[in-house]
């Protein structure tokens, strides 16, 4: 026993080490008793109170990190806000376009398109749109947006089409003043303004009146806004008002358009062309006399022949256009 005690005293450090290791291992194995758990809960709660009391103390490194994280979050949020703003604006624009499409579609089939490019010179303003013959777009189709009339399809290839806008020297549109139903012709004379011509000075015209497409137009659907009368000028030595229009469409900011897919009624076009031809030929007394001498049967036959001739011409023209289109597609 004495020798054992001597051994222990001699190696007391090792003995203490062994005892402490054994105690630690025992605690690790059996230390999770209910009583100890309760005691530890009280102690940890007390430490929690202290931690809360010192929570106001700043950790400089944490602050730096938090600052960086906040800066990043701020940047991301700013970007998101900007994106949201853009989305809201875009949404508003699309909603207007959708509203227009819904309002016009029951009567008129339309196809939407995005402006892909602009071609401008002194006397013309063309737009390139991202739809073409593959989307059933054909030459002559009217182009509009939610604000009003844009122009018509000047030419089309498979994936693109060129739109001739109202700002063109060849623009001639049968139009009417919405308030008074007075008809006139819209033309362009340079700049960004249009003019409504052939409106008699006897007609009631006011600045601010809305001008829309007329029912007489073969190319454009009726009641599409063209512009608003911005100036009424009383020019001497003429029976007509000089009416300057502010276009309904703001061409520089145009992004989306609709193309009316209905083409003019061919029979109507034909009969109007017939009239035009007659007028060009001249309605002379000799001709009238000749017509008077004709029996109803003869007149009917003659008109039928003329119609057939016109129909043939129309078909020939269409065939040529088709050929041109094919050639341009191949190119």
């Amino acid at each position: 026993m004495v020798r054992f005690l001597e051994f222990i005293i001699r190696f007391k450090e090792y003995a203490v080490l062994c005892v402490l290791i054994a105690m630690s291992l025992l605690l690790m194995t059996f230390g999770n008793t209910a009583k100890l758990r309760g005691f530890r809960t009280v102690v940890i709660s007390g430490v929690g109170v202290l931690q809360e009391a010192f929570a106001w103390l700043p950790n400089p490194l944490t602050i730096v990190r938090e600052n960086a994280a906040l800066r990043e979050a701020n940047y991301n949020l700013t970007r998101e806000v900007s994106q949201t703003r853009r989305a809201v604006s875009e949404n508003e624009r699309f909603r207007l376009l959708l509203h227009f499409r819904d309002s016009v579609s029951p009567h008129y089939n339309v196809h939407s398109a995005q402006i892909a490019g602009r071609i401008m010179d002194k006397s013309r303003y063309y737009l390139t749109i991202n739809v073409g013959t593959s989307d059933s777009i054909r030459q002559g189709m009217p182009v509009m947006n939610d604000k009003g009339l844009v122009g018509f399809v000047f030419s089309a290839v498979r994936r693109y089409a060129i739109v001739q806008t109202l700002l063109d020297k060849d623009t001639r549109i049968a139009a009417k003043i919405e308030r008074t139903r007075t008809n006139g012709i819209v033309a362009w004379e340079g700049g960004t303004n249009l003019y409504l011509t052939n409106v008699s000075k006897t007609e009631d015209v006011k600045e601010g009146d809305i001008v829309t497409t007329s029912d007489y137009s073969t190319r454009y659907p009726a009641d599409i806004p063209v512009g608003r009368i911005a100036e009424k000028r009383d020019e001497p030595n003429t029976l007509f008002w000089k009416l300057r229009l502010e276009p309904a469409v703001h061409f520089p900011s145009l992004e989306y358009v609709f193309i009316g897919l209905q083409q003019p009624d061919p029979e109507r076009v034909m009969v109007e062309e017939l009239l035009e031809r007659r007028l060009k030929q001249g309605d002379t007394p000799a001709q009238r006399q000749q017509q008077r001498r004709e029996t109803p049967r003869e007149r009917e036959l003659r008109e039928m022949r003329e119609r057939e001739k016109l129909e043939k011409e129309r078909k020939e023209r269409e065939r040529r256009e088709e050929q041109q289109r094919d050639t341009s597609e191949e190119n």
Partner: protein
Amino acid sequence: MASFFRTQQAFTDTEATMNNPLLRYIAYAIAALLLAVASDVLVPFIAIEGIVPDIVLIWAVWVALVEGQMIGMIAGFGGGLVLDIVSADVLGSNALAKVIAIFIAGYFYLETREQEMTGSFRFPLIILLCGFLHNIIYYFFYLRPTEINFLQFFLRYGVFTTLYTAVISLVPMLIISRVKD
């Protein structure tokens, strides 16, 4: 003048306490308790990427270098146990790691040359060695119930905790070296 005398009196009182073994051990126990609480409440404020220095280990190594291997081991065990209790760790895990680490630190104990050991750069080096050993043992038991890769975890947390503890141990070393001078 009055404050000077008060300071002198305080030094005299401290010296008296340090000469009385019982009072000294009580002071160690209180210090262990305070340091354990501080390591849970205040030390997180100097955390770097979530890594905190082990101030209880610094204190236990200091005790081992001043009092010897046996007292150091008991201090380490007590300090570790208090730390386990206040930090909701596995009871006994810190105690075991500290006992073994302090056992090694005890070999650096040189009677009558305590201040030479604690007030020089040997102190942080001993902390580095003991901290390394301590963290191997501690993380071994800490990760035992999990499937986390021990080596990866130790290299990420154990090594940095050891280095940070060694860096922080420069503070008491500098204080002790100033007192020694």
